[in-house]
């Protein structure tokens, strides 16, 4: 069982459950993109109530979902391997291009040494792999106190912030 981090702090597991495409969709279900595309009309009311989440695999790019992101309270982006970096671009595009305001969660092979970058790319929560040390994980969020680039939190690169 992964350990859930929200806004840089460990929290108890929340009520969201991943549902397969054959499962019944109930409140607080996380569904696949395939299902969303097939059953969008039926699912909209649940989404409107803030009780529907989406799971994106690492080869599902943000442009496929695009403005549909606003239907979801939570979007999970999967990292099948920690070294698969597609999720970083997906997160930034969802935040910065499509203006997704809900909870954006990194799931899958989520490790301590990627948390800092995930945070910068706009992930608001992480399902940390269960073997990872909690103390080290929290420390990782403050690895760098200053960064050169702009990111999901600050549109200004360092060159617009330098004194």
């Amino acid at each position, binding site marked *: 069982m992964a350990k859930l981090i929200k806004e840089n702090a460990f929290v108890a597991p929340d009520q969201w459950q991943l549902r397969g495409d054959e499962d019944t969709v109930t409140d607080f279900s996380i569904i696949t993109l395939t299902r969303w595309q097939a059953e969008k009309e039926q699912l909209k009311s649940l989404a409107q109530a803030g009780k529907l989440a989406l799971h994106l695999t690492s080869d599902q790019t943000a442009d496929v979902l695009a403005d549909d992101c606003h239907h979801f309270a939570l979007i999970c982006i999967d990292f099948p391997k920690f070294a698969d970096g597609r999720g970083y671009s997906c997160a930034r595009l969802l935040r910065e291009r499509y203006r997704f305001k809900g909870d954006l969660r990194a799931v899958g092979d989520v490790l301590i040494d990627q948390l800092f970058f995930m945070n910068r790319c706009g992930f608001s929560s992480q399902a940390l792999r269960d073997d990872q040390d909690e103390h080290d994980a929290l420390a990782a969020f403050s690895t*760098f106190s200053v960064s050169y680039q702009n990111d999901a939190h600050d549109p200004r*690169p360092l060159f617009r912030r*330098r004194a």
Partner: protein
Amino acid sequence: MYVYDEYDQQILNERVAQFKGQMARYLDGKISNDEFLPLRLQNGIYVQRYAPMLRVAIPYGLFNTAQMRRLARIARDYDKGYAHFSTRQNIQFNWPELSRCPDILAELAEVQMHAVQTSGNCIRNTTTDEYAGVIADEVVDPRPYCEIIRQWSTFHPEFAFLPRKFKIAVNAVPGQDRAAIQVHDIGVNIVRNDDGDIGYRILVGGGLGRTPIIAEEIRAFLAEEDLLTYLDAIIRVYNQFGRRDNKYKARIKILVKALGIERMRELVEDEWNRIKDGEGRLISAELDRVKKHFIDPEYRQLTNEPTELVEARASNPAFARWLQQNVKQHKQAGYAIVVLSLKQKGNPPGDVTAEQMEHIADLADQYSMGEIRSTHQQNLVLANVEQAQLFALWQDAKAKGLATPTLGLLTDMICCPGGDFCALANAKSIPVAEAIQQRFDNLDYLHDLGEIDLNISGCMNACGHHHIGHIGVLGVDKKGEEFYQISLGGSSGDDASIGKILGPSFARDAMPDTIAKILDFYVAKRIAGETFLEAYRRIGHDSFKEAVYGKAH
């Protein structure tokens, strides 16, 4: 050169602390080998055949004498007393202990150096012309742009886990290219448009390795302030759509080929149009801030060809030869650009001892304003030498074995560390380089042959850039034995081309004779003033093939 401010230093110090912690967690068993791999790679540490190798970044090849002395100290204290300059203007230590690498990184940080992103699937050190800022024919000094790219690419949160490594090179000289930008993932050509504005012609998808490809133009002109947003857009497209199922198909060149340059451009421009007017756009204050670090030093008012130089040249043929081959014209009257060769006979190309490194630092302090540049041909440059001092410098350099007068000639070879060090190599490359250096050691003959790029790689990863050598040598494995395949006609310059394989490969001891056959044929067939590459292009591949293998039956 660029001097860190408090932000730069803080970022680097925090990096040193981060890796120290990661190393401790690794040694403590809290990080597995596989998971530690990209962390150590992005801090410059490879595990090689016998020991770890630490690759230290020399951003765009520019460093100072305090940094050189620190590198020498590291070579002595943590290694076997020598180091190796690579084809990407970096420097490598071949024998550090893994557990001591964090200490080396801390020592480097004290002199504003690091090993950040010198390996791994991320944006690597940006390279440029080793004569940047001191030659007359550049559009503008490319180094401020390289520094701006360095900062933007350092710990870029989105691009630390790309499908594969990513290399950017910058050139600012019209009609010439010492940075080989056409064989990089992104080539930035700094140009002026018809209105006289500075901007960039952007190339994408070049590369060597298993699939050598010349880059294509994705944008003919990009305004000066648009550099970083455009780079963001290209790499964002690559990060999403580049292949990750096969590491040999994962470079951006494969994506560009698969999509076609038109579709690639469409995707990039669509993303760029969204961000180009945002806060990521460069501002003139930042361009000015960085450019201030690269303004000309206070040159003295001197004239070309001072008496001391003229007299020394006339009376000393060996000095005259070195001047002709290793000294280049400076933009400032009375000054010269000097290339110190790291291609002495019996020495692996690019290798220097700690003593030599200190000597070079002394030379740079005494003769060249305390700065040094590394080149992608694995030599070192002193860029600001007074012409009146050239003879004294030459005597000093010669005494230390650094004045081999063969720049650009056959024995000024590019060579990867090969099977002597590298775990990837199919074959050794250094012994081939040494055999060629031994066989062709007659300076008159070498000068008569003229400019020839001979590049040697120990495997198809092509670290020795064999594809773009006029003569390329590739180590191959044939049933457990080391053989060498020769290609001809490659070029890294403005007229970049990929060499064509000549024919079946040769055993190592046959290599000097085979190279001799190629050279003899060139000498017999060349017309006055024709370089090897020009002659090859005129005479054609098949004639050279016949000269080496005999007539096909």
